[in-house]
């Protein structure tokens, strides 16, 4: 992870502030920074989204390709995640330097999507055992300002919301050979339902309290964090402890309750933002990186 060097005095200042529920930028312990979300940023993809959370900048592109279903799940399509920690974020990620962090994030994404209810995989099936849609979700980390997992999960949800998969029909002729026909209308497509896609809420333990959406400086003061993946209904799908330090069991339950509270609010605001953006229609002014 991109590191920032802090003096002892700065660390003490941050820790004492957090005990009083006052963070360096004036937020409370359970407040997020200002989030900017924009979808349909890259045109070569089936769906894309850009999320800017303070100084953290993430770009996600989803490409839908046809392939064969996995042997153990012949009636479903599947998702493949790839995370590229680009050297833009910090020079340490040059060459293969960002591979370790990228693999860790990709594995976390695989785990949170590894249940039946997150995405309806059956809708991605075209013909059982033969053809299905594979969604390649590619995450590009452009700037690292703390709280990567949250920003990435928000971006993945927004990109999946924006994904438009063309409708196909399977035509069978007399010999039994199947032909796949793509519909002529470019607007005729299927959308994925992202109602149950979870978002990750990272809680960093600083002193004896925990904070949501830590900046790089706050992450440097915290020894242990808990990643909780929460759906919009408040259901926890995955939980993981990261960091060199240790957590005691009572604080884990407290953090889980906080994450459910915070997660529900996050989902509500994200859904309303995505629907508002979509209601602006094709005449929406696309800003991207130029704004």
């Amino acid at each position, binding site marked *: 992870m991109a590191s920032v060097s802090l003096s002892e005095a700065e660390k003490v200042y941050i820790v004492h502030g957090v005990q009083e529920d006052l963070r360096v930028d004036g937020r409370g312990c359970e407040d997020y920074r200002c989030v900017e979300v924009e979808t349909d940023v890259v045109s070569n993809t089936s769906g*894309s989204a850009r999320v800017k959370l303070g100084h953290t900048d993430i770009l996600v592109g989803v*490409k839908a390709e046809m392939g064969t279903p996995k042997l153990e799940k012949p009636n479903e399509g599947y998702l493949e995640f790839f995370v*590229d920690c680009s050297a833009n974020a910090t020079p340490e990620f040059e060459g293969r330097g960002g591979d370790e962090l990228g693999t860790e994030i990709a594995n976390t994404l695989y785990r949170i999507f590894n249940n039946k209810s997150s995405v309806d995989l059956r809708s991605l099936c075209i013909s059982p055992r033969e053809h299905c849609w594979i969604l390649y979700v590619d995450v590009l980390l452009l700037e690292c300002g703390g709280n990567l997992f949250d920003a990435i999960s928000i971006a993945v949800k927004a990109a999946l919301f924006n994904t438009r998969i063309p409708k196909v029909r399977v035509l069978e002729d007399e010999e039994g050979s199947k032909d796949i026909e793509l519909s002529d209308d470019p607007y005729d497509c299927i959308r994925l339902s992202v109602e149950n896609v979870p978002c990750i809420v990272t809680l960093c333990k600083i002193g004896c309290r925990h904070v949501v959406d830590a900046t790089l400086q706050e992450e440097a003061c915290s020894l242990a964090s808990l990643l909780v993946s929460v759906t919009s209904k408040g259901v926890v799908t995955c939980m993981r402890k990261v960091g060199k330090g240790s957590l005691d069991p009572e604080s884990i339950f407290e953090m889980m309750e906080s994450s459910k509270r915070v997660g529900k609010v996050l989902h509500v605001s994200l859904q309303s933002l995505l629907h508002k953006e979509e209601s602006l229609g094709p005449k929406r002014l696309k800003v991207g990186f130029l704004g």
Partner: protein
Amino acid sequence: MAGLELLSDQGYRIDGRRAGELRKIQARMGVFAQADGSAYIEQGNTKALAVVYGPHEIRGSRSRALPDRALVNCQYSSATFSTGERKRRPHGDRKSCEMGLQLRQTFEAAILTKLHPRSQIDIYVQVLQADGGTYAACVNAATLAVMDAGIPMRDFVCACSAGFVDGTALADLSHVEEAAGGPQLALALLPASGQIALLEMDARLHEDHLEQVLEAAAQAARDVHTLLDQVVRQHVQEASILLGD
């Protein structure tokens, strides 16, 4: 003859441009706050981001430090979703390494490296969407990023690609025109002096036509320079307003 006509009888290309016309260019400096310098450019449908870190101490082995000038280090990376077909690796493959070396050669010619001995300047370029002319977009974005970082340069470095179809030289090729297989020339120019920082050509071209194609590319690079100059001036004006001058 059926098929895609790169240049129609009336002189229009596939996307409606004239032979020497550039695509729409929009650029912005100072995109990321944490990097020393950053810039974003859109040339038609090609989008590129450039980020500069430096000059700073040499990372890794100190033995690579040059006693009289700075080391310029470039990495070219294109996102997996940037092309029509999904790319498996964003960087590390042969083409990206070659582009990185070409960018390094281009910028070593332009940056005043003698002012920063024993240090390193990192230029990282990321292509978000590739629709032809990726090298040119990367060079243009990197020029703006190096300026945003405040690293002294001899001059702007402006790049453009050019091709040759039916006796006419085309400037600023899009992906469809590049894929058609004709000769392609990539040119990086220092506009004030007219010096060429990088010249690369693929495929066969008769030497009688070379001057025409070279002139088309040079004129397009000078047009790019006019645009980039405007972008830098506007950025400096905005920055000075914010500082309250």
